[in-house]
């Protein structure tokens, strides 16, 4: 084991510097805003208004353009949070804990949206708002996990300790992600299989699939934007009085 000579790239360590992250994040932020706005607007308008109706479900299938991105992001955000937490634990990077903390609220929001839109979609198609099948139950567990992570993070006032505690809960909680993902294949469920995959070909024609792709990508940019904004805000709070910040154009007002 001692022979491992894993070398982390330079940018990885740069990311750990509050000044560097603040500046780099500031550069990315407007582009993320633009991308999220354009992709989500185009995808939503296209999907909700112009895409053809489904042969079986009619127009009710359109809620997919909200439901699927929210569900995908609810899992991606949790995974990102756990990875950021693990980086924080291993390399003792404060920035990583801040990133993990920034993920909590947006991830919980996506999960809630996925659950609510799923229930609204379930009533006209399945005939029930809620069924205790494996997919739905594991997603509800994900929402509870987010609530637990959030509560733990808020309960400890010392940031470093809070970061460590949340990271461990997030890492253990990632077990739920493959369970959610494969629940529809491992067990009999009412929920249909995934219609969105990186490897398989889409389960719908492109005039239905492309708007979905746009909304999913847009949601990723929205997530990125929220994380950048919130992490930069945390940097401002914790670096209060640091000399690089006092001389920064955002603070001193000098152009």
């Amino acid at each position, binding site marked *: *084991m*001692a022979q*491992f*000579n*894993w*070398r*982390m790239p330079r940018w990885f*360590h740069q990311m750990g510097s509050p000044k560097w992250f603040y500046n780099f994040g500031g550069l990315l932020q407007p582009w993320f805003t633009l991308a999220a706005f354009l992709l989500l607007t185009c995808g939503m308008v296209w999907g909700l208004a112009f895409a*053809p*109706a*489904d*042969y*079986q*479900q009619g127009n009710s*299938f359109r809620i*997919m353009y909200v439901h699927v991105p929210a569900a995908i992001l609810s899992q991606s955000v949790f995974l990102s949070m756990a990875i950021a937490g*693990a980086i924080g*634990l*291993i*390399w003792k990077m404060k920035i990583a804990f801040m990133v993990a903390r920034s993920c909590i609220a947006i991830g919980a929001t996506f999960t809630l949206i996925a659950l609510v839109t799923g229930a609204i979609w379930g009533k*006209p*198609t*399945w*005939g*029930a708002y809620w*069924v*205790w*099948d*494996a997919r739905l139950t594991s997603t509800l567990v994900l929402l509870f996990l987010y609530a637990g992570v959030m509560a733990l993070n808020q309960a400890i006032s010392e940031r470093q300790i809070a970061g460590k505690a949340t990271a*461990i809960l997030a*890492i*253990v909680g*990632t*077990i739920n992600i493959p*369970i959610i993902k494969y629940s*529809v*294949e*491992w*067990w*009999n*469920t*009412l929920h*249909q*299989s*995934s*219609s969105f995959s990186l490897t398989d070909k889409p*389960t*719908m*024609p492109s*005039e*239905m699939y492309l708007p979905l792709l746009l909304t999913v990508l847009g949601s990723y940019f929205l997530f990125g934007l929220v994380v950048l904004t919130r992490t930069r805000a945390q940097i401002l709070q914790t670096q209060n009085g640091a000399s690089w910040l006092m001389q920064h154009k955002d603070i001193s007002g000098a152009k």
Partner: protein
Amino acid sequence: MLMHPKRRKKLLLILGLLAGTSIIVGLVLYSLSQNINLFFSPTDMAQGKAPTGQRIRAGGMVRDGSLERATDSLKVRFVITDFVEDVKVDYTGILPDLFREGQGIVAQGKMNDEGVFVADEVLAKHDENYMPPEVLQALNEAQAASSNTTKTEAQSAKDYPSQEASK
């Protein structure tokens, strides 16, 4: 910059933690798999895997041409199948919009003495394939032109993989 031994140790510790909890959760889920499955397939019921005299859920495809509606009430009778075994289902009430022959459904109820499943709730299952009605029409026309085999049933079986997956 090399990875510090302390960090490497921590990384391995985290991976170990993850592997350990995965194994525990995996075992728990494996032992609970009968309870996690939302419904029993007709094959499960024929093999006696489903508890009798209890409220359970049964799931399968509504067999083509099996739906009988009573003329004076909301009572319906149909057969669900996983293309190996069949189960007769009785239900009184309003069926979901997506209920139709060849469609997957999940029914909750009890097996009666005559081997008929008396359901008090019927949910429709739909698959992950979406298409505009024109595409379906074009598909059907192409299908009708090429052959007149009962392709719908073969297609339905493919779209309903949970039965094979549970074996």
